[in-house]
């Protein structure tokens, strides 16, 4: 159903104004449109207004900036912008997650904010950001910012904490102390090598000192629960352990703890049984 009104704000003020004016109406944000257009084609949305963010000019929304506390990624930064940013190269989990999204055509227009706000339990970028312990910076129509840890941003399938008068402005990925060893990556399981919605995904970002002792650990799982889950107790388990000398039992225990956060469903893509098997296998395989 592609009949809708559009408002195209060019500045943040115009954006907040548009949000105020349409509050209470049937309104959606459109940024990269790679999810929205498909959604709208599937269902009828009468009297829909789309606030078209595609032409917004605002650094907070668009740029990727190194700050004191970390690196902020504007919600309107595209996937390609993320891949091109030198500061973000230190987070292999994020780079690999972004590279795994669809195709170069989609990555050129799809936005980080779009991926997060779609709130899909299979969201690749969201999964990586949960492993990175990122914080969502949310702007309301009054001009105020509130911060929500991204692991708490998702409340259910395709639902988030965003209120009707709010928009996700940016995401902050916190700095880590410089470190000797990084064990980090994003594993996405599918039936083919490209263009997949993850059947299971596992994002991990583990730092260790020169001895190999784990100093920081973050991991998240996707497509195996209603929302992306941070596997806290599994990460806790690793703290202080030596990453070079993990025993088979340790690795198994880590995988067991990861699995506790999963409650997958069976659908036409895969069964719950398969998702569990593979999640356990791949989380164990990262060492």
């Amino acid at each position, binding site marked *: 159903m*592609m009949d809708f009104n*559009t408002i*195209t704000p060019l500045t943040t003020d115009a954006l907040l104004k548009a949000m105020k004016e349409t509050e209470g109406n049937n309104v959606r944000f*459109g940024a990269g*449109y*790679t999810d929205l*257009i*498909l959604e709208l*084609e599937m269902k009828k949305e009468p009297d829909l207004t789309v606030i*078209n963010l*595609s*032409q917004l000019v605002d650094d907070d929304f668009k740029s990727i900036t190194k700050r004191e506390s970390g690196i902020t990624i504007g919600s309107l930064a595209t996937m*390609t912008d993320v891949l091109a940013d030198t500061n973000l190269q230190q987070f292999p989990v994020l780079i690999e997650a972004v*590279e795994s999204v*669809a*195709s*170069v*055509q*989609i990555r*050129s*227009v799809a936005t980080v904010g779009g991926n997060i706000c779609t709130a899909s339990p299979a969201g690749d970028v969201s999964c990586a950001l949960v492993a990175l312990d990122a914080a969502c910076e949310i702007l309301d129509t009054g001009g105020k910012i509130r911060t929500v840890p991204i692991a708490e941003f998702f409340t259910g399938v395709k639902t988030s904490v965003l209120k009707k008068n709010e928009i996700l402005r940016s995401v902050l990925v916190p700095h880590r102390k410089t470190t000797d060893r990084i064990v980090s990556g994003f594993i996405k399981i599918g039936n083919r*090598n*490209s*263009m997949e919605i993850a059947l299971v995904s596992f994002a991990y970002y583990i730092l260790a000192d020169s001895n190999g002792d784990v100093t920081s650990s973050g991991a998240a799982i996707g497509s195996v629960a209603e929302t992306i889950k941070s596997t806290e107790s599994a990460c806790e388990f690793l703290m202080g352990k030596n990453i070079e000398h993990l025993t088979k039992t340790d690795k198994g225990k880590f995988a067991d703890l990861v699995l506790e956060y999963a409650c997958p469903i069976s659908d036409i893509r895969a069964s719950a049984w398969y998702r569990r098997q593979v999640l356990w296998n791949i989380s164990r395989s990262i060492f």
Partner: protein
Amino acid sequence: MLLIDLIRDELKLKGTKPGCLEGECGACTVLIDGTAVNSCLYLAINIHDKSITTVEGLTDGRTSLDEVQESMVNHGAVQCGFCTSGMVMAIKSFKDRCDSVNHVPDRDEIKKNLEGNICRCTGYVKIIDSAEALF
């Protein structure tokens, strides 16, 4: 209105093809400011202040094919041809990007750049060959 509708129905440029209209097959790929984008997932109003190139644009006002097109012809990379303009635009964008930073890609990078372009006839082999030959 979607960009693909603007291109095909309003501007009557039929080279850009409606393969799936779900952003999966890449047959509708055009260049927006030199970047390959699926025109089926792009709102027409957002081309404001941007330059759009369709496959016709590569030979517009010329008597010979663009090097990307020439390479595809000479490598036997064209069978039914419905995916072809999308392939051409994806490869064109990639070539220009690599050239601008003096980068020579390997075969895996070429494939990665084409992962969003589906072909049912060629099995991709000669299309990848034709792109590799450009560098």
